[in-house]
C-alpha cells in the first residue's frame, strides 16, 4: 500500500521516518489538516484523504489517512506502534490482533477509517506503565514463545479469550485461540499461560 504516509495537504507531507521517529502524538499532530470528514454526502473527490480520530491506547489520536490504509499499517507506519505484527496481511495468522472497543480483531483486515471515534488497544496499551500485564508475565513464566513474532497477537487474543469466558478448559482455550498461528509451535506454553491466568481468577 502506498500513499498512506501522505497527508492531503502537499505542504505537510510527512515521511515514514518522521512518523516513526516522533512520538505517536507528535506524528499525528502534524497530520491534522484538511482531511475529508467521514460522512455520507457530498461524495469526496477520488484520492481524498480522511481525518479520523481513533482513541489509541486511551489517547484521542487525530490522524489523516489514505482510505486504503489498514489499521495495522496505521499503527505501525503512522503511529510508530510496532507491537502488532504483520504475518500474512490477510486475516489468516492473528499476529496483528488488537482490540477495538474491547473486542479482538485482525487489524490487517480492518480499514483504519472504521476506527474513527473508537477505542483501539494494542499490546503497548496493555501494560500498566512498567508493570507487566498478568498475561505478559504468564507468557514469560510458561515459556510461551520462541522467536516472539506471534506473541503480541497471541497475548491480545489470550486476554480476550479470558474476558469472553472461553478459558474454561484446555480444549476450549485451544479452540478460542485457533485464529493465532505460531510458526515456532509454542502452543503448549501458550495454553499453559492462559490456563494459569484464568485459574488464578484474576481480572484481566
Amino acid at each position, binding site marked *: 500500500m502506498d500513499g498512506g504516509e501522505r497527508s492531503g495537504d502537499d505542504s505537510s507531507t510527512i515521511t515514514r521516518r518522521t512518523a516513526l521517529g516522533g512520538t505517536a502524538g507528535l506524528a499525528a499532530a502534524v497530520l491534522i489538516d484538511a482531511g475529508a470528514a467521514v460522512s*455520507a454526502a457530498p461524495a469526496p473527490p477520488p484520492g*481524498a484523504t480522511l481525518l479520523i480520530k481513533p482513541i489509541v491506547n486511551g489517547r484521542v489520536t487525530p490522524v489523516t489517512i489514505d482510505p486504503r490504509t489498514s489499521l495495522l499499517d496505521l499503527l505501525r507506519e503512522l503511529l510508530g506502534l510496532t507491537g502488532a505484527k504483520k504475518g500474512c496481511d490477510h486475516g489468516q495468522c492473528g499476529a496483528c490482533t488488537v482490540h477495538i472497543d474491547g473486542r479482538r480483531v485482525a487489524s490487517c483486515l*480492518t480499514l483504519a477509517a472504521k476506527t474513527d471515534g473508537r477505542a483501539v488497544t494494542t499490546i503497548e496499551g496493555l501494560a500498566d506503565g512498567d508493570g507487566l500485564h498478568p498475561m505478559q508475565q504468564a507468557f514469560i513464566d510458561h515459556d510461551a514463545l520462541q522467536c516472539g513474532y506471534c506473541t503480541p497477537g497471541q497475548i491480545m487474543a489470550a486476554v480476550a479469550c479470558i474476558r469472553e469466558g472461553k478459558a474454561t478448559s484446555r480444549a476450549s482455550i485451544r479452540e478460542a485461540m485457533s485464529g493465532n498461528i505460531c510458526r515456532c509451535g509454542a502452543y503448549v506454553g501458550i495454553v499453559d499461560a492462559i490456563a494459569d491466568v484464568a485459574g488464578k481468577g484474576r481480572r484481566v
Partner: protein
Amino acid sequence: MRPFTYVRPDSAQAAIEAFAAAGPGARYIAGGTSLYDLMKLDIERPEHLIDVTAIRGLDGIETDGDRLRFEALAPMSAVAINRVVLRDYPVLAESLAKAASQQLRNMATVGGNLLQRTRCLYFRNGAGGVSAGMTYPCNKREPGSGCAAIGGLDRGQAVLGQSRSCTAVSPGDWPVALVALDAYVEILGRQGTRSLPVADLYRLPGGTPHLEFALTPGEIITAIVVPKAAAGRQSTYHKIRDRESYAFALASAAVALDMAGDTVRQARIALGGVATRPWRAVAAEAQLAGKQLTRETAIIAGRAALTGAKAGDHNGFKIELAARTVADALMIAAQRKPA
C-alpha cells in the same frame, strides 16, 4: 491497491443514495473481511466504498414471535452466542462458531457472510499482484479467460453444481445452515423492499460464473429471517476440515430433524464445502421421511445427498467424505433433546 473514495452514511436510505450517486465502481463494505482482503490481492477493484457499518439500528437480533430475525450488521460472534439461537437452533450457532476465528467473527457481519467470495486457489491467486509470477485464467475473476482449476490442482473444488466454466466452492458455513432452515433475506433497494429465499440468492455458475448473487447493484441486505421450526432443537452443523479448527470446510452438513420417537417425520439437510452454492439435499430428505433413523439409513441418506456428484482429478474423496459427514450429522442431531 487501487484508490477509492470512502463514505460512511448513517442510514440505509443514505447508503442507497450514495451508491447510486457514486455510479459504476461503487460497492458496499461491511466487516471487510472478504472485500478488503480481495482488494489487497487486486481481485476486487472498487472505486467507491460505501461503508454500511455506521447505519443505525441495523444490527439487532430478534427472537420473539414466530421467527428469528438477524439484522445484516449483527456480528457473526454475537449471533453465535445468542441464548435462544444456542438452545433452539444449534445448527445456526455451530455454523457461525465453526467459521473463521473469533477475531474475524467479531468483524464480519451475518449479512456480509452471505456474499463472501470463493476461496478457490486459482481465483485468489494469480490476479497479477506482486506475489504472483503469472496470471492463472479464471472465469469468475476474468470472464472468458478459462478455468485453471479444471484439470489443475482441484482437491478443494466442488463435486456438485459445477459447470465446464467453473468448479469453485461456495465457501460460507452460515448460508448452508440457513438454507436447511428455509431462511430468507430482506432486501432494500431504490424500488423499495423485497424478500428472497437464501437458497435463491446463489446462482449456479453455468456459463457465467462471475455472476454469483441474485442481487441488483445497489441493493442492501437488511435482515436474515428464519421461520421458527421445532426441528431446530434436534439440529447440528457438522464440519470436516483439514485441521481441527480455523479452516474452510472440506465437507459439511447442516441437519435438522423432526422426529417421532426413532422415526423421521421430516429431515432437513444441506451440504457445504462440496458444491458451487449452498446445497439442499432434497433426495436425501425424501429418502429418510417416514424411516427409522439408524446408522444404515443415515449412510443411505448420506449417499443420496451426493446424487449426481462428479469428481475431478484430486477431489474424488469428497464424495464419500460428504456422504459420511451427512450420516454423522444425522446421528449427532438425533441425540439432541427435542423441543
